[in-house]
């Protein structure tokens, strides 16, 4: 019944600075649903798509390396970061479609005794909860249903686009996030900017635009009078929470919308406290009547 | 008043190539007026190839071989001097396209790749994967942007104006605003494409391939030629008429009737599904006529026996097309198909320079008829035709416009057209556009389609006259001026009804079978009486008047056409 599910854990680089707390949070929340993470020791940064702007081959090799380690561990590769998920997915697809490139990447990896076979299975928080753990078990573990909470759900882009690389669910009409939220007991609120991009990856090349895009998404949810926004992407979380004040100030808007990273909300519903979830580190204060 | 030295109507391959002829001219104003944005023209739909004897694949290929194939393919109705020009100049225009950036597929040596095509004795169709028309059209448009070609997009031409001798210009409606304008021009080039839509849903053609330019020229008193020749393709999808390319049969697909019989064994026991297009079309049609069709008058192209892997590997695009347009996965079930009207051989009569009998009025492309396709066009020859004669028309118009002044014009036509539109817009009680159009399409497919006979054609002519009467009362619900697509459709329907009549009358008159024109009651080709072009002009009684003119034969004596 309560068998433990194990993953090769690839954290990516999103849990740095104040966000380093998420290593512990994630571990604790997953423990609630019998999930164990085993760190992929010898991993490197996925390059977040930026390395491609210098060398696609390097990017492919780096990501093949990460997958090769997971293959060696015999575990699916789990990453909490949507961009890592996207970049690794794309690498997988690229090498599958072009065997010559795949072979060349393995030639590069051979120097460190590695081979990417192409068998590595890849997953993300959304499907760990919604499919592997399953909604039924998750429901069992919910001890503190968040009834009455009005929530705007936000996937962000990188688990959805491009579609169908891993085939978990329809990219046009994904439901995993809402399915999970429903189990947690919240009320899901539709809003217009749900499919828009927060612009996180413009933070460096065009910060003003990043701020505008983040502000647009937030405003769409805010006008629907929600209590909070929940996102399954740790980078969207940075945009929406960490830079919310700046984004709204720069675009002449004046409100505060608490934003939670999905595992936090799952933790709260499973009986963990605001302290456990270290909510005080949020940029936008989270005062939930729980 | 709007004035251009040269106004090109239509932005398909023919129109754009003509426009680019004047790209370096500073002393002339050239405009391109088009019903849709240029890159949306139907030239983009051509998938297979454009013919030119480059000899990149078969070093023995020559333009003379191409010339002969064209004449033979035309069932000897092509004018051989015109076909000579086209095939001789072909390598040059294809190279020019290439120099402008057209991304043709490549041979191992990095040259333009070529493939074999039906009716061609050597592999000479230059291609770009399955999108040759698309890349040609975009290349022409891109060069048009580069050279600052002046576009009037989403304008629909209504009438052609001349003083009996020389061109005056056109009237046109700006769809976005609904206003009618007079546009004065020394020269007008009609490059408005074909009229496959007279078969309405039974065609591979775009929704707007309604023969506007041809009908307008006809109403302006110009002769239109060989209109009875319409090429049918055997495998159009049941619902939309979209083509399932020959590749599916080449790969081993079966043609089945509703009873599941592989019916080609009745008609071509040797070649079976791989017989020539016209024979296969006729066979499908016979199955339907004799009551062996599927539930909705279709027959089936069956690939299921090829197996999932082979289909995924060899025919992925065809599979995608069936899923997207017909909702049928050919791995799982047979594809429902019907023969579909594909190409209009006939069109506005022109000389070798694309000029009509009125000075300054030109036609090119599928709208025109020089004629190079005669009674049957070869695959890959019409993309070539639009380049060659688009270019020649452009060149000649340039000279003409430079050496002539504007012919005076008043706003009489504009007023008449505005009045005509107002009266269409008043229609409240009659049949809807959709009803008349559907009746026209069904009637044409049944009686002026793959098979024809005197009796059916006679009744077609009289039924078409009824439909024209009905059209006078047509019901229009949308009374808004701006972007009134119902009005656009009404104007198109008017054009189609006129052309459908000419097609039917021509088919009735031509008592022989030649190329794409098959008379059950006159099954043989008759060179003695019918080696002639049909010229239709609008008679005083408002009905088409037919004359016949000789075919130019320079090199190849007519012979039986066997493959």
């Amino acid at each position, binding site marked *: 019944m309560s068998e433990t599910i194990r993953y090769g854990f690839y954290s990516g680089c999103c849990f740095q600075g104040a966000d380093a707390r998420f290593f512990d949070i994630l571990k604790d929340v997953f423990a609630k649903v019998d999930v164990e993470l085993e760190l992929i020791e010898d*991993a490197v940064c996925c390059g977040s798509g930026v390395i491609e702007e210098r060398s696609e081959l390097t990017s492919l090799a780096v990501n093949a390396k990460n997958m090769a380690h997971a293959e060696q561990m015999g575990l699916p590769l789990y990453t909490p970061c949507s961009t890592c998920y996207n970049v690794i997915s794309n690498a997988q697809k690229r090498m599958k479609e072009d065997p010559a490139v795949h072979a060349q990447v393995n030639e590069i990896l051979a120097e460190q005794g590695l081979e990417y076979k192409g068998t590595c299975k890849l997953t993300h928080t959304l499907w760990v909860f919604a499919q592997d753990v399953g909604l039924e078990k998750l429901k069992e573990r919910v001890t503190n249903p968040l009834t009455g909470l009005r929530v705007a759900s936000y996937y962000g882009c990188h688990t959805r686009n491009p579609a169908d690389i891993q085939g978990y669910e329809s990219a*046009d009409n994904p439901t995993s996030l809402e399915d999970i939220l429903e189990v947690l007991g919240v009320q899901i609120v539709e809003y217009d900017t749900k499919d828009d991009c927060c*612009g996180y990856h413009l933070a460096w090349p065009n910060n003003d635009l990043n701020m505008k895009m983040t502000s647009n998404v937030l405003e769409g949810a805010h006008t629907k009078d929600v209590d909070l926004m929940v996102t399954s992407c740790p980078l969207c979380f940075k945009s929406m929470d960490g830079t919310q004040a700046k984004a709204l100030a720069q675009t002449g808007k004046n409100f505060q919308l608490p934003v939670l990273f999905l595992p936090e909300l799952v933790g709260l519903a499973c009986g963990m406290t605001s302290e456990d979830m270290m909510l005080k580190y949020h940029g936008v204060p989270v005062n939930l009547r729980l | 008043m709007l004035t251009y030295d040269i106004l090109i109507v239509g932005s398909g391959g023919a129109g754009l190539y003509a426009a680019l002829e004047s790209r370096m001219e500073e002393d002339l104003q050239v405009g391109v007026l088009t019903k849709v944005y240029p890159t949306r023209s139907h030239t983009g739909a051509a998938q297979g190839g454009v013919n030119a004897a480059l000899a990149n694949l078969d070093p023995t290929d020559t333009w003379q071989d191409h010339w002969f194939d064209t004449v033979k393919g035309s069932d000897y109705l092509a004018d051989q001097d015109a076909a000579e020009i086209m095939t001789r100049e072909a390598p040059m225009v294809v190279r020019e396209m290439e120099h402008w950036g057209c991304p043709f597929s490549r041979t191992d040596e990095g040259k333009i790749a070529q493939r074999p095509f039906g009716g061609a004795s050597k592999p000479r169709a230059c291609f770009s994967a399955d999108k040759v028309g698309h890349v040609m059209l975009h290349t022409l448009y891109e060069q048009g942007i580069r050279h600052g070609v002046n576009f009037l997009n989403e304008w629909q031409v209504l009438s052609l104006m001349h003083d009996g001798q020389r061109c005056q210009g056109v009237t046109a409606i700006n769809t976005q605003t609904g206003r009618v304008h007079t546009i004065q021009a020394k020269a007008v080039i009609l490059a408005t494409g074909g009229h496959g839509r007279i078969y309405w849903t039974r065609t591979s053609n775009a929704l707007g391939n309604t023969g506007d330019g041809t009908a307008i020229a006809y109403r302006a008193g110009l002769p239109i030629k060989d209109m009875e020749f319409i090429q049918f393709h055997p495998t159009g999808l049941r619902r939309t008429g979209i083509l399932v390319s020959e590749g599916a049969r080449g790969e081993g697909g079966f043609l089945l009737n509703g009873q599941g019989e592989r019916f080609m064994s009745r008609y071509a026991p040797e070649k079976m599904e791989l017989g020539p297009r016209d024979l296969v079309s006729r066979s499908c049609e016979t199955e339907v006529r004799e009551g062996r069709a599927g539930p909705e008058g279709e027959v089936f192209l069956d690939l299921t026996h090829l197996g999932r892997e082979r289909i995924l590997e060899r025919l992925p695009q065809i599979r995608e097309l069936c899923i997207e347009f017909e909702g049928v996965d050919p791995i799982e079930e047979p594809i429902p198909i019907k023969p579909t009207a594909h190409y209009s051989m006939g069109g506005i009569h022109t000389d070798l320079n694309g000029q009509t009998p009125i000075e300054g009025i030109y036609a090119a492309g599928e709208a025109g008829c020089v004629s190079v396709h005669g009674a049957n066009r070869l695959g890959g020859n019409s993309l070539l035709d639009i380049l060659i004669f688009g270019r020649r028309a452009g060149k000649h118009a340039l000279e003409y416009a430079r050496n002539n002044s504007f012919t005076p014009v008043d706003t009489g036509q504009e007023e008449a057209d505005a009045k005509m539109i107002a009266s269409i817009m008043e229609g409240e009680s009659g049949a809807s556009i959709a009803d008349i159009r559907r009746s026209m399409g069904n009637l044409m497919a049944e009686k002026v389609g793959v098979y024809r006979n005197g009796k059916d054609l006679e009744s077609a002519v009289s039924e078409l006259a009824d439909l024209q009467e009905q059209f006078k009362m047509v019901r229009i619900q949308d009374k808004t001026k701006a972007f009134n697509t119902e009005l656009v459709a009404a104007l198109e329907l008017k054009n189609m009804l006129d052309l459908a009549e000419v097609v039917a009358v021509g088919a009735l008159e031509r008592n022989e079978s030649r190329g794409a024109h098959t008379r059950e009651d006159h099954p043989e080709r008759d060179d003695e009486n019918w080696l002639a072009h049909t010229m239709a002009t609008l008679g005083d009684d408002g009905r088409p008047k037919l004359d016949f003119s000789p075919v130019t034969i320079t090199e190849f004596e007519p012979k039986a056409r066997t493959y």
Partner: protein
Amino acid sequence: MIEKITPVRKSILANIRIQRFTPSEHKSAYFDNFKVSVETGMTVLEALRLIKNTQDSSLTFRAFCRSKICGSCAVRVNGKPVLACSTQLMPILEDFKKDSVSIQPLKNMPVLRDLVVDIEPVIEKLSKMHPYLMENRERIPETLEEESIMSKQEHSRFDYITDCILCGSCYSACSAASADPNYAGPLTLGKAYRFSADVRDSFQGERMQAAVDQGLWSCAQCRKCINVCPKDTRPAVSIQRMRKMSIDDGIHDTAGSRRAKAYTGDVAKYGQVNKPMLPVIVNGPKGWAAIEAAENYLKKHGIEPTLQVCTLGGQSSTQKIYDKVKELEAKGENKT
């Protein structure tokens, strides 16, 4: 084994909600509902045409080729830009588990009427991108007696983009284009790359500058354009390649190129990006303010800023990957 063929054709009575708007008559857009019996095989375009033919002939939309090649008919169905003519309705009803769909005009372009948008602004942006080939005389002969030679491999660098039908779906889906009216958008940058990657072209420099000026670095790489493109032309990938090309061509003075350099270099050195340093690397001295603010924030929460760059373990091996890639590139053997 001859069997009569009986195709399975389903039919559902569906509610089609269509956004309507005629500027001269309405203050704002509204929805009309139409009941349509949706059959197996029916496309969105067929449903629109059926409604126009039998229920409301003033319904306004564009369509021409009805075979996925002209790009006229793009609309949003349940929010997603699609080509009406190549999108089956039945699977959408099944995917959304509802008997109702909404059809709206594309976003990011002004509506002319109902489902028809004004694409002129996009065409203008495209035109400014020099979307054409300028003859490179080293490749293209002066005379029409000869072809230019271009290898299959050279051709394949850009061939995938020539499928673009200028339908505007990607532009509609692009949040960067919504937020920044000056951003050129995915299809235009895709086209820019198409020509700059063509060995027969000689205009790379000017075009590159045009691309940089019109937002080469304003793409968020959200990859929605890839998802919605009906022709699979992958604009976001072209944008990455164009960025690479611009840096290779020596346009180094953009925040984006500095980021690319930092990421690439850092991953080689540390196995991870040295995020705390990014503000100064990318923005120069004024970046120090951001660094100090970040450190203050950490201090406020009692977190010690760390000096360790890499939280992952593989840094020792990345340099090897880089070296090997360099070696392959030097030999001209890079297969990507």
